[in-house]
């Protein structure tokens, strides 16, 4: 670490140039709540840290006609203080809000939680369920990618050298569309998900589901979009046979590991239970709109 450099550029172009031109490992820094822990433990030995927080637009939430634009380094407190976003996507805000303590919430960001690439990242499933995209800046200009394309395995992302996420685009909900995110931990606060589940549904005026996305966290190397769970919901009201089909589909999609937080069998069972509960909340919210 004696060769570590730190820089705090004020434009995206500058940040990309630094990240792309660095010899060795270069890491963008937003809240640092994962990066600094890895730096301290020696698990990560970067040669360059580029603080992104002084770049205009990297922190903050902007509302456009058909979407929310969230700066990549926007911390949790700014997410849940935003009334329009909380109203539109309570599940996304719940996911972000579940991460860490008040101290962590002041710093931890959506892009950091995503790019840390933990299968248990709480803010990620609901963002994927809302079909959000992210804008990535890099040496070859900008590109847009669905959020689910970023994490490719534990601790690994699809971002190339010199690339960083600049902002997230989250479409606004359609009529009768809403979401929910639930995570299971053995206590009430300050723990890492055993299972996380986001459900995003659109209903017709009779309460029948017309579109759905179900995303599980912490049950596979990456977040999992459970197509069969969405199929179980679409065309149905939330009756017991539908819930049972959803539960079974969620369980089938699990490829978890056994660790100190839970066994394979336990995680699989809990994934089904959380899918049921999150679906109930999402249907209630969507129906109330």
């Amino acid at each position, binding site marked *: 670490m004696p*060769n570590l*450099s730190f820089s705090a550029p004020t434009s995206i172009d500058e940040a990309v140039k630094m990240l792309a031109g660095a010899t060795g490992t270069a890491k963008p*820094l937003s809240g*640092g709540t994962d990066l*600094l822990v890895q730096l*301290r433990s020696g698990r990560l030995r970067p040669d360059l840290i580029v603080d992104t927080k002084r770049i205009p637009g990297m922190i903050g939430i902007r509302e456009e006609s058909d979407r929310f634009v969230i700066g990549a380094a926007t911390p949790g407190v700014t997410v849940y203080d935003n009334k329009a976003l909380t109203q539109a996507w309570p599940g996304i805000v719940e996911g972000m809000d579940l991460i860490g303590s008040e*101290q962590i919430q*002041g*710093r931890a960001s959506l892009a950091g939680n995503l790019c840390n690439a933990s299968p248990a990242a709480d803010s990620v499933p609901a963002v994927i369920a809302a079909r959000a995209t992210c804008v990535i800046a890099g040496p070859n200009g900008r590109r847009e990618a669905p959020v689910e394309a970023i994490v490719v395995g534990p601790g690994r992302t699809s971002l190339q050298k010199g690339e960083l996420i600049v902002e997230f685009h989250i479409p606004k909900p359609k009529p009768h569309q809403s979401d929910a995110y639930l995570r299971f931990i053995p206590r009430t606060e300050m723990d890492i998900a055993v299972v996380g589940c986001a459900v995003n549904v659109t209903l017709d005026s009779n309460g029948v589901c017309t579109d759905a996305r179900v995303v599980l966290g912490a049950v596979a190397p990456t977040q999992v979009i459970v197509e069969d769970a969405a199929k179980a919901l679409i065309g149905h009201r939330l009756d017991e046979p539908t819930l049972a089909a959803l539960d079974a589909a969620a369980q089938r999609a699990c490829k978890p590991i056994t660790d100190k937080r839970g066994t394979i069998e336990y995680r699989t069972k809990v994934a089904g239970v959380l899918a049921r509960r999150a679906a109930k909340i999402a249907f209630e919210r969507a129906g109330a709109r």
Partner: protein
Amino acid sequence: MAKHHVSTTINGEPVEFLCEPQQTLLDVLRDELNLTGSKEGCSSGDCGACTVICDGRITCSCLMLGAEAEGRTIQTVEGIAQGDKLHPVQQKFLEHAALQCGFCTPGFIVAAKALLDENLNPTEEETRYWLAGNLCRCTGYDKIVRAVLDAAAVMRAEAGR
């Protein structure tokens, strides 16, 4: 590697310091500025013993680089009392004996002060959630929560006058 020159505001005073890129704000406070009130517990953002207020938000100073403090406004436990007059949170921690070994106390004081800056009438539940990022192995938390709620009552009474 060149040291970073950082200009910042700590406890209301302009402060300049030099730091290595990998030094955390906590390292700088304790080792460069002799502000040893902020404690190093876990160094991973779990225990809250190093809590400071940065631009109005509590943060773990072990999870922030010293170089990031450029242009920010930092408050540490050393800046909570007004001269010889203890902040109500500090006074009530004494009266309720809301500490035993005392290692976690500075972090709790800073976090509780920030809570009461935002909300003079927190419920017990809100207080417990707010303080969930501060760990104490001695007290069992109850005395700490009572002290904070009592400090809030004192501050409400003062504000009402």
